[in-house]
């Protein structure tokens, strides 16, 4: 026999489907084993139905009809604690950047195919060039692919610009990293290559992120890309194809990423931007 019972407010929220998944599961588990709460739930549910106005009920029905069913990503984001309103933003970013996501995945897949067909050197060079840059370029793409007037509406809205920037960065990273890791795994050569690009990538992305607090991220992304291409070209000319996996490259990348991250945090503080 249970020594505690679910309070009426929680039961009412359960009956009206206003609880998040974890709370709902908890109430459900308790109610299944507690006759008192079960009968109380029946009473609350009847009362709840009785107090819902027709207008509210009709509003809920309309909303169910109006809103596209949640895609798996949305449900997953909500499960890890992303708020409902932020999932709307992420969905919008995904919709605007679909072409970018498809294009990058296709390029990586073709490069991986080339590697498996025996064009090893070119595939490796392509990988070292592309993989670290994709998240940084993705951040710029999320801005460039937004229609100009939608950008104006974003700028003139009270939604935190830093928060929007971070969601866009998160989207770019989340879509580019798995494809790049998969590509890296099929490249012959140093097995560390599959993950060695992550720190340089973090450095490039952090540099774009911090520059984006001053200006449109497209220009810094172009500058960072040019810098990275120059560095890779110099490795190629000096015949050091494995320079990416050396400790010096990794430490330098980590230092740049940390420094840029610190500047970004400082910028948020100076600008009094509340991200969350």
């Amino acid at each position: 026999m249970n020594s505690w019972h679910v309070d009426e407010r929680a039961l009412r929220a359960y009956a009206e489907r206003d609880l998040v998944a974890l709370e709902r599961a908890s109430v459900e588990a308790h109610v299944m084993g507690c006759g008192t709460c079960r009968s109380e739930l029946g009473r609350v549910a009847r009362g709840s139905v009785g107090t819902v106005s027709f207008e509210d009920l009709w509003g809920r029905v309309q909303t169910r009809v109006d809103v596209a069913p949640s895609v798996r990503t949305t449900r997953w984001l909500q499960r890890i604690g992303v708020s409902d309103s932020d999932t709307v933003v992420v969905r919008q970013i995904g919709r605007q950047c679909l072409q970018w996501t498809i294009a990058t995945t296709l390029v990586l897949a073709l490069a991986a195919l080339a590697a498996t067909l025996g064009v090893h050197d070119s595939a490796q060079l392509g990988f070292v060039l592309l993989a670290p840059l994709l998240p940084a370029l993705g951040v710029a793409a999320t801005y460039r692919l937004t229609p100009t007037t939608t950008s104006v509406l974003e700028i003139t809205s009270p939604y935190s610009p830093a928060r929007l920037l971070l969601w866009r960065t998160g989207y770019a990273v989340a879509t580019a990293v798995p494809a790049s890791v998969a590509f890296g795994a099929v490249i012959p050569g140093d097995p560390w290559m599959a993950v060695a690009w992550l720190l340089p990538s973090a450095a490039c992305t952090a540099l774009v992120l911090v520059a984006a607090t001053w200006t449109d991220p497209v220009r810094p992304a172009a500058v960072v890309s040019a810098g990275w291409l120059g560095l890779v070209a110099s490795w190629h000319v000096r015949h050091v194809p494995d320079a990416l996996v050396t400790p010096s490259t990794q430490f330098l990348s980590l230092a740049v990423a940390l420094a840029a991250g610190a500047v970004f945090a400082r910028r948020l503080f100076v600008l009094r931007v509340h991200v969350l």
Partner: protein
Amino acid sequence: MHLTIRLDHVTHRYRDAVALDDVTFQIGTGVTALLGPNGAGKTTLLSLLSTAAAPDNGNVEVFGHRADGTLAERTAIRRRLGFLPQEVEFPSGMTAFGFLEYIAVLKEWNDKTARHREIRRVLGAVQLADRPTIKIRKLSGGQRRRLAFAQALIGDPDLLILDEPTTGLDPEQRAVFRATLSERGRHGTVLLATHQTEDVGAVCDQVLVLDRGRVAFAGDVPSFIDSARGRVWVDDAPVPDAVASWRDPNRRVRSVGGEPPPTAEPVDPTVEDAYLLLVGPTPGVEVAA
């Protein structure tokens, strides 16, 4: 009348071109028309007021906050602002409801139930309540314009800034639009940039005319119309040296400005007449300010 907008000696340039030149004016509650020929600086002015851009010189204040101030000041303005740009390019693949939901989230409507209720309200206000799930690309030009207007109405903002909102609307839709604006003007501020001078007479309390980056007129609508009194005629032929002449519905020729012949009959001026006299090619027109 509560003061909503105050511009003090504002200048803004695009490289060498001066878009706004030492502009000073104030706007309070009610509907204010913003008139001016293409290139007069209207869109630049709206960008400054909507916090999308900052002036090179001078001070822009909205609700007592600097529009080029700290992020906190700009956010305070944005929370009370509804903005309709001249052309709204919609993100591809979206539904009307989806687009409005994104804008509502940007406007901090975080509660899902309240947000959806608000979206249905603004869809109803622009007569698109029966088309929430349709893809935007399948909407007509007028319907898209109404959808763009709907996003500006989200949250019933205290300040509505509208750039050419009636472009592409049929007469019936324009009537609905005017009714909405009149209602909004009773308890808030509406700044309406338009080339449709008939909208000005129908819904506006005040007129602000920009010409080549400077304020050519700022005052109420009757004063603006009065500025053309005694300078508009009808006759069987155009008046020589008139700023503009055209045939009216009675098959007579209406002329604005110029030296009328003895046969010309003076008629009551309209907003359009006053506007043509003010920004037309005839120099030295005296206008009440």
